[in-house]
C-alpha cells in the first residue's frame, strides 16, 4: 500500500461521510477504507447493546449470508472482556488458528477467508461496536494490526451515524 493510495482512501471516506445523505453508505465507505488499509474480503460492523446483552449487525459486505440487523447474544468471554476494558485489537492469522473459534467456520471458509481481525470501538467509556474483517490466510499479521488502528476514528463516526439511524 503506497502512501498515495492511503491518502486517497481517506479522502474518499471523508467525501462519502460529507456528501452521502444515506447512513448505510457510510458502512460501505468504511469497508472501502478497510480494503485499502488492511484487506477485508468479508466485512461486518456489529453494534453492541449492553442493556439487551446482544450484538446487532449494522453493516455487512455479504447481506445474504450475514444479514443486516441480525442479532446474537453477547458472550462475556475473555476476548470480549479484553475489547471492552483494554480496547484490544485481536487477530487470528492462520487457518489452524481459526479452528474452534467460529461456529460458522465452514461458511467463512467457503467465502475464502482464513484469517480474522476485530477492532473494538468505544465512546464515552462504553463499547459501542466492533469492526470484524476476514480475509485470506496470513492477511492480518502485526503490520496489519498496527494499520487497523487507523480505522478507529473513521469507524467511531460510522458507528454513531448507523446507531442513530437504526435507533440502537
Amino acid at each position, binding site marked *: 500500500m503506497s502512501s498515495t493510495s492511503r*491518502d486517497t482512501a*481517506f*479522502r474518499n*471516506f*471523508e467525501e462519502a*461521510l*460529507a*456528501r*452521502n*445523505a*444515506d*447512513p448505510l453508505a457510510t458502512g460501505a465507505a468504511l469497508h472501502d477504507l478497510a480494503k485499502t488499509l488492511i484487506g477485508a474480503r468479508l466485512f461486518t460492523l456489529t453494534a453492541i447493546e449492553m442493556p439487551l446483552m446482544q450484538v446487532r449487525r449494522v453493516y455487512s459486505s455479504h447481506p445474504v449470508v450475514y444479514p443486516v440487523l441480525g442479532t446474537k447474544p453477547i458472550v462475556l468471554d475473555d476476548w470480549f472482556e479484553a475489547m471492552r476494558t483494554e*480496547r484490544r485489537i485481536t487477530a487470528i492469522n492462520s487457518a489452524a488458528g481459526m479452528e474452534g473459534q467460529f461456529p460458522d467456520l465452514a461458511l467463512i471458509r467457503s467465502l475464502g477467508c482464513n484469517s480474522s481481525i476485530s477492532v473494538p470501538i*468505544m*465512546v*464515552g*467509556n462504553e463499547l459501542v461496536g466492533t469492526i470484524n474483517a476476514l480475509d485470506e490466510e496470513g492477511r492480518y499479521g502485526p503490520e496489519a494490526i498496527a494499520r487497523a*488502528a*487507523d480505522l*478507529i*476514528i*473513521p469507524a*467511531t*463516526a460510522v458507528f*454513531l*451515524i448507523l446507531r*442513530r439511524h437504526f435507533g440502537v
Partner: protein
Amino acid sequence: MTTTEALATFDAAIAVAQTAEAAYKALQDLAQASVGAKLFTIMTVDMAADVARRAYTSDPVNYPASGTKPINYGPWFDVVHKQREYFVANTIEDIAQVFFDHELINELGCQSVINMPIVIGDELVATMNILDVAGYYTPERVQIVRELLSVPAKLAVLVAQTQEARA
C-alpha cells in the same frame, strides 16, 4: 508529538468522552498538536432554526461560548455554508471584512484564521475555527487541516450530539 501519536491521543480521548466539552477538547488538542492554533472554537449551526451557537471555546474568559445567535449571512456565509469551502484569511484586515468582532480577535493576538465547514450526510452541522498570528495559515497548514482534521472534526461533533442527546 508525531501525527500518529496525536491521532492516538485523540481517539483515546474520544473513547472515554462523556460530554460534548470533552469531545471538543480532544479535537482542540489534536488541532494544536498538528497544525497549531492560539484560539480554537466550534460553532454549531441549526439551519432550520436559522441560528448558530459558539458551542466550545479554548478561551472561555476572553472569548466565551455563547447562546444562539442569528446566522451571519454575507460573503463569509456564502463561502463556508453555501459552497462548503474553507475560509482562510491571513491578515487582520481580511478578518475585519467578514467578522464583526475583529477588534477582540486582534487583541487576543490573532490575525489569521481557518474556518472549516463540518459536513455530515450532506448537512452542514458546525464549523471548526482556528486562529493564530498573522500569516500563520499557509497553504501547507491548510492542507494539514484537510488531511488530518476533517474526519476527527466530524467525529467530535457526532460524539457531542450523542452525549447531549443523552444528557
